[in-house]
């Protein structure tokens, strides 16, 4: 069987018929070609697949595409506006908050959610807020700096 879904992805309407078992992350990556959300684990711990669903940071590997019916989804591809990088994207670039880049889209979207909840987080609040995203390259030092950079720019 398939399920018909209608949703908005990065501001554009999308309609599709998907297998019930199809995970949102596979729908985004393979059916829509939005490969920014990555898959790094299968236990909902690494956070590389994080996207925003109706504004909330969500692990798209732990959500069925069918559950996203009617939702508004934002992926890393939808973050820059009119060609201008989002302050978080700038921050990660400016502060060397990424190396291999695989965790980066999820990390940026989690940080985006964090800053929406708490526009000027302390270092400790940043570290607590991003605990659902694993980075194996940076030791996180510069990720904290990147988020602080963005928070300042956005305030």
């Amino acid at each position, binding site marked *: 069987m398939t399920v018909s879904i209608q949703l908005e992805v990065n501001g554009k309407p999308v309609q599709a018929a998907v297998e019930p078992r199809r995970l949102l992350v596979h729908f985004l990556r393979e059916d829509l070609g939005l490969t920014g959300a990555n898959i790094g684990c299968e236990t909902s711990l690494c956070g590389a697949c994080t996207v925003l669903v109706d504004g909330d940071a969500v692990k798209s590997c*732990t959500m069925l595409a069918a559950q996203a019916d009617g939702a508004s989804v934002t992926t890393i591809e939808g973050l820059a506006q009119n060609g201008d990088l989002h302050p978080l994207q700038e921050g990660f670039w400016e502060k060397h908050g990424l190396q291999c880049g695989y965790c980066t889209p999820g990390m940026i979207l989690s940080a985006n959610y964090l800053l929406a909840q708490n526009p000027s987080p302390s270092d400790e609040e940043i570290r607590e807020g991003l605990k659902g995203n694993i980075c194996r390259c940076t030791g996180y030092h510069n990720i904290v700096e990147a988020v602080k950079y963005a928070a300042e720019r956005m305030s």
Partner: protein
Amino acid sequence: MYPAQFDYRRAGSVDEALGLLQEHEDAKLMAGGHSLIPMMKLRLAQPPVVIDIGRLDELKGISEAGGSVRVGSLTTHADIAASDVLAAHCPVFAEAAGHIGDAQVRNRGTIGGNIAHADPGSDIPPVLVLLGASVHLQSPSGTRSVAAGDFFQDLLMTDVGEDEILTHVDVPALGSGTGSAYLKFEHPASGYAVVGAAAAVTVQDGRCTAAGLVVGGVGAVPTTVDVSSLVGTDLSDDAIAAAASGLDAEDPIGDIFASGDYRVHVGKVYGKRALAAARDRA
């Protein structure tokens, strides 16, 4: 990473969901999916039918009435952690919910799904037992409620019947003069509680009039510690340590990170610390 095939049914009401449950043998209810989908991805769960109840607004929300707070089963951990109502009436509940997983998990995971899954490392069950919450269930034949202490039966086993839906929990508000705290000893990999200690104490005129301590992570179900010895005391550190040391688990759970013996020990330490934190907040 790739769930087995299943049929998907989306319920528009609790009654419809109950009907679908009757109709499909071995069907699984899915709220946020944060307990079920990980199991399905590893094919440890292969339900033939998944009934999505995630959109049932009637099961969402937090409200207070008559000294009790009602939390709908589809309320997310994020909403519980941020709830002003719970902060005012049962702060330890909100505190524990804020410890679950991470921000993304709290945004999708629900209280109903969490307690129906009954992972021994979950942060919520010891709090519900501590607070004397009741769990409300609905089936085609009616509704019933179960005390949280009876709801959790064994490892990953609860009192939810095959034809039932968990609709909400009712949590008695903590009275004035009561302090509460939840302290978590977190597993460095999974983020689950190796030990989670939930404590509440009521103090009047410098004397303890009521005290409770429930520890998760040590046994298959939350372990209630008899801390009645604290009643009448001034909650000195010594009295608290003595009370918390009464933690006993017949068959503690253990894994490669923390053995059963060690969990019992940490349960006592965290029990002590949670009681002291509750005292300081009373």
